[in-house]
C-alpha cells in the first residue's frame, strides 16, 4: 500500500488533521489500532470542554493553539454538525488568596489573547449559578468556553475526511517505521507495510513509543488518569456554566459541567499512573470526584442516586509539559503531534492547521481541491428534542425511525441503522454515534435489540457482536451450549 501522508491515530488530533488535509489534493491515510474512531483513549473519555484559553502559560504551544482552536469551534461544529454550545465557564474562588489567583488567570488569559474575561462577585455570581456553594467569593467568567462531544467530533471529522477522499484503516496498529537515507519510507503495521512520504504521529498515549520507532526519544508520555461521574438528565438545570475550582499545578481541577447532551458531569481527578491501558475507575477516585463536585455544588451530596455512570480517561501527559508539534531534519518526513493533553480537544482544529503549515514547510505541495465538501449531514435524532413534525417526516421516509429502541435516550432503529451505515460495528460504536445505551438504564433495555440489529446488518452471528472490538464479545453462547457441549446445536 502507498500513500503520501500517513496519520497514526484516530483520536481528535488525528481526525482533525485528516479532515484539514482532505481540503487539499493529497493522498492521505489514517491508521487506528482500535476497532473504531475515538476508541483509543483520551478522545473518548474527557471533560468535553472547549476551553477559553487562560490556563496555559503565554508563549507555550498549548496556549497559542487553545485560543486559536477555541475560535474555530463555532464554524467547525456548524459545518460538521457537531454538538457544541458556548455556555461559558466560571473559575470559582472561595477566599482572598484564591481571588488573587483569578486575577492572575485573567492576566494570563489576556496575554494569551482571550477576550471578555471578567471577575464576578456577589449576587451576580449566584444569579448565574443559583446552586453554587454559598461560600463562593468570586468567579472568573469566560464566556467563550463551551462544551461539545469529543467522540462525536472525532467521528464527524473522520466522516467528512473520508467523504473528501482520506482512507481510514481501522484495527491497524503501527509496529515499526522504515527509514532510509534519513527519510521516512514506510510504516509497518499488523496488516502489512504502508509506504509513505510523511508520517504524522498522533498516537495519543502511545505517541512516545511511535516516536521512538522513528528514532526520536526526546519525550515520554505519562498517562494521567482522570475519573468522572455522570448524573441523570433530571439534574440538567442545576448548573448553567462550566464550573472550575482554582487550578492545581497539574490540573484544572474537578469541574461540574453541564454536558452538551443535557447531563451533568463531574471530574476529573488527576493521577499519574504507569499502565497506558489502565482506564479503570477506583473507589478513592470516585470519592475524590464527589468531594470536589460537592464543594462547588453542595446539593449534589444528596444526589448520589442520580449518578448514572462513572468512567475514567487517560490524558497523554508529555514530559516536556507542552504539546510537541514539529518536524525533524532527521528522519525527514516524520512529524510529531504528541503530548496532546488538555486543551487538546479545544486546540484540535488549530493543531490541524499548524500541521498543514509544517507539511508545506517540509516541501509538500498542497493545493486546495476544487470539490472539497465542507459539510457533513448529522444523524437525525427526531426524539432527542422531540419535534413531532421532524419525526413524522423521517418516519414517512423510513419506517425504522418509528421503532424506538433505546427507552432512556429515545433512539430509534433508524438512527442505529444510519450509525451502522456510517461505520459503527460495535455496541460502543452505535452508542457514541446515537447515545443508545448512554441513558439512565445504561443499556439494560436496548442492548439485546442493538446486538440483533448489528448482527443482522453486518451479516455476522449474534455471538460475534462485540462491545468495542477485540475479545469484547457480549453473548458468548446460544442457549443449551454448555449442556450439550459441541455435540450439535
Amino acid at each position: 500500500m502507498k500513500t503520501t501522508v500517513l496519520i497514526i491515530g484516530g483520536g481528535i488530533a488525528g481526525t482533525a488533521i485528516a479532515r484539514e488535509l482532505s481540503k487539499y489534493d493529497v493522498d492521505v491515510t489514517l491508521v487506528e489500532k482500535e476497532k473504531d474512531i475515538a476508541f483509543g483513549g483520551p478522545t473518548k473519555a474527557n471533560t468535553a470542554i472547549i476551553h477559553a484559553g487562560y490556563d496555559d502559560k503565554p508563549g507555550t504551544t498549548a496556549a497559542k493553539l487553545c485560543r486559536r482552536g477555541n475560535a474555530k469551534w463555532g464554524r467547525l461544529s456548524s459545518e460538521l454538525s457537531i454538538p457544541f454550545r458556548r455556555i461559558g465557564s466560571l473559575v470559582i474562588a472561595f477566599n482572598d488568596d484564591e481571588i488573587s489567583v483569578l486575577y492572575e488567570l485573567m492576566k494570563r488569559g489576556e496575554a494569551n489573547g482571550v477576550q471578555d474575561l471578567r471577575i464576578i462577585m456577589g449576587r451576580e455570581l449566584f444569579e448565574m449559578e443559583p446552586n453554587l456553594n454559598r461560600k463562593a467569593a468570586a468567579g472568573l467568567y469566560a464566556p467563550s468556553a463551551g462544551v461539545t462531544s469529543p467522540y462525536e467530533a472525532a467521528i464527524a471529522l473522520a466522516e467528512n475526511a473520508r467523504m473528501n477522499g482520506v482512507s481510514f484503516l481501522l484495527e491497524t496498529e503501527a509496529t515499526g517505521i522504515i527509514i532510509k537515507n534519513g527519510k521516512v519510507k514506510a510504516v509497518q503495521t499488523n496488516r502489512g507495510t504502508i509506504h509513505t512520504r510523511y508520517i504524522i504521529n498522533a498516537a495519543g498515549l502511545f505517541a512516545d513509543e511511535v516516536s521512538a520507532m522513528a528514532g526520536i526519544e526526546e519525550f515520554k508520555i505519562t498517562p494521567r488518569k482522570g475519573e468522572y461521574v455522570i448524573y441523570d438528565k433530571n439534574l440538567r438545570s442545576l448548573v448553567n456554566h462550566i464550573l472550575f475550582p482554582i487550578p492545581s499545578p497539574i490540573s484544572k481541577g474537578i469541574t461540574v459541567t453541564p454536558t452538551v447532551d443535557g447531563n451533568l458531569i463531574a471530574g476529573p481527578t488527576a493521577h499519574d499512573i504507569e499502565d497506558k491501558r489502565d482506564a479503570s475507575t477506583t473507589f478513592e477516585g470516585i470519592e475524590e470526584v464527589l468531594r470536589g463536585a460537592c464543594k462547588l455544588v453542595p446539593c449534589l451530596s444528596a444526589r448520589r442516586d442520580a449518578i448514572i455512570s462513572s468512567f475514567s480517561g487517560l490524558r497523554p501527559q508529555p514530559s516536556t509539559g507542552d504539546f510537541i508539534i514539529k518536524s525533524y531534519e532527521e528522519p525527514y518526513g516524520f512529524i510529531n503531534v504528541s503530548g496532546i493533553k488538555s486543551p487538546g480537544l479545544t486546540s484540535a482544529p488549530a493543531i490541524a492547521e499548524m500541521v498543514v503549515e509544517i507539511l508545506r514547510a517540509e516541501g509538500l505541495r498542497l493545493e486546495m481541491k476544487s470539490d472539497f465538501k465542507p459539510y457533513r449531514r448529522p444523524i437525525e435524532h427526531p426524539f432527542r428534542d422531540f419535534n413531532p413534525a421532524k419525526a413524522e417526516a423521517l418516519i414517512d421516509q423510513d419506517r425504522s425511525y418509528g421503532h424506538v429502541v433505546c427507552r432512556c435516550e429515545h433512539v430509534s432503529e433508524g438512527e442505529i441503522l444510519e450509525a451502522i451505515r456510517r461505520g459503527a460495528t460495535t455496541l460502543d460504536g452505535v452508542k457514541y454515534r446515537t447515545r443508545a445505551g448512554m441513558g439512565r438504564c445504561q443499556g439494560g433495555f436496548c442492548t439485546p435489540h442493538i446486538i440483533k440489529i448489528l448482527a443482522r446488518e453486518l451479516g455476522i452471528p449474534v455471538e460475534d457482536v462485540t462491545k468495542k472490538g477485540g475479545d469484547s464479545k457480549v453473548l458468548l453462547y446460544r442457549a443449551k451450549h454448555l449442556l450439550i457441549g459441541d455435540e450439535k446445536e
Partner: protein
Amino acid sequence: MIKRKLDIIVIGGGAAGLAAAIAAKESGVNSVLVLERNPELGGILPQCIHTGFGLHYFKENLTGPEYISRFISRVHDLEIEYKVETMVLELSPRREVWAVNQHDGLLNLKADAIVLAMGCRERSRGALCIPGTRPAGIFTAGTAQRLMDIEGFLPGRKVLILGSGDVGLIMARRFAMEGAEVMGVVEVAPYPGGLDRNLQCLRDFGIPLYLRHAATFIHGSDRVEAVTISRLDESGKPIAGEEKTIECDTLILSVGLIPENELSKGAGIQLDPNTGGPVVDENMETSIEGVFACGNVVHVHDLVDHVTQSGEVAGKNAAKKVLGELPPLERRIHLRPEGNIRYVVPQIISGERPLTLFSRVKKPASNAKIIVGEKISIHKRIVKPPELVTIKLTSELLKKLNPEKKELTVTMEE
C-alpha cells in the same frame, strides 16, 4: 400522524397494565388502548419462566408466562385494543400522550383517563459506581433473563451475581440449570435481599452467598475476567485485607429496582421520595386528576398477585372516572411513614372504606405492632425488608380513626 381520542389509555402492557385494562373494560368502558414497548404483551412475565406466580390470585402455582397468558387471553376475549413495540414519548398533564411505533408512525392520543403501568427498571453498574474496568459481560439480571429465556442466549459460563434480591437468586439457579458455573451471590446487607423460598436456589446448587460483601473492583479489559469482592464493616466500608478475587466471565447485577417514572415526572405528577413512584390515593389516582397508577410504577412489589390487584383497582376507578361515577374522596388523610416503616401505599386514604395498605420496612423485626394513627394497632409476627407488609384496615378498625385528622403516622413498635 394519527390523532385519536380514547376513554382510557393504559401505558404499559405488563401485569398491572393488563389487569387495569381488563378491569376498565369489564366496568363498561368502551375504548381502552394499551401501549406496550416490548414486541409482546406481558411485561417482565414472559421471561420469568420459574414457578411461584399466582399462589394468591389463582390459588395455583404458575410460571410467569402461564400467569400472564391468562390475562392476555382475557384481553383478546374482551377485544381490548393494544399496540406493541410502541414507545410512549411524552405524557402531558392534560392527559395527552405522544407515542410512536413503526406501523402507525406518530400517535397523538388523548384520553379521559390514563393508567400509568410502566413498571420499574433495574439499577445499573453505573449507578453503583462499582470501581474497575468497563469490559463486556456485565448485565443486569432482568436483561440477562430476557437474553436467556426469550432470546435464547447464554451470556457466559462463569457467573458472579451481585445482589441477593429475588431476581438475583432466581438467575443464579437459572444459570446453574443452563450448565454455567455460578461462582457466588454477593450481598451488601447482612441478610439476603430476596424471599426465603428463593434462597433454595442457592442451596440446591451449592452456590455460596457472601453476605455483607460488596464488589470493589471489576477486572478485564475486553471481557470481564474477574471481580474482587470485599467484606464490609458495620458502617458498610470495605475492610482492608478482606478481599477475594473471583474469576468469572460474566457479572450479573441484581441491585435494586427503580419505579420507571420519567413520563410521570414529565407530566408533573407528584412523586413520593420514599417509593420513587407517584403519590396515589385509595383509588390509585395520582396528583393529576384522571391519571391513575398501578403496579411497580407506584412501588416495587414482590408478588405479581399484588401487582394485578393494584391494576384492577386502578382500572376500575379509571372506568368510573370516565363514566362520571367517581366522586372525590370524602376526606383526604395523608399517611406518613415513621420509624421502621419505609413507606406506605396508598399515601392518601379517605378512612371511609376498608382497604389494604402496602408497606415496606427498613429493618427486620419480630413480634412487631404496626400503629396507624394512634388507635389502630396490627400485630405482625415477623417483618422483613424484602417482603411487603400488608396492613388490612377493616371497617371496624377504621371506626377508631379520629375523623378530624388530616395526617396519620404509620409506625412500628417492637
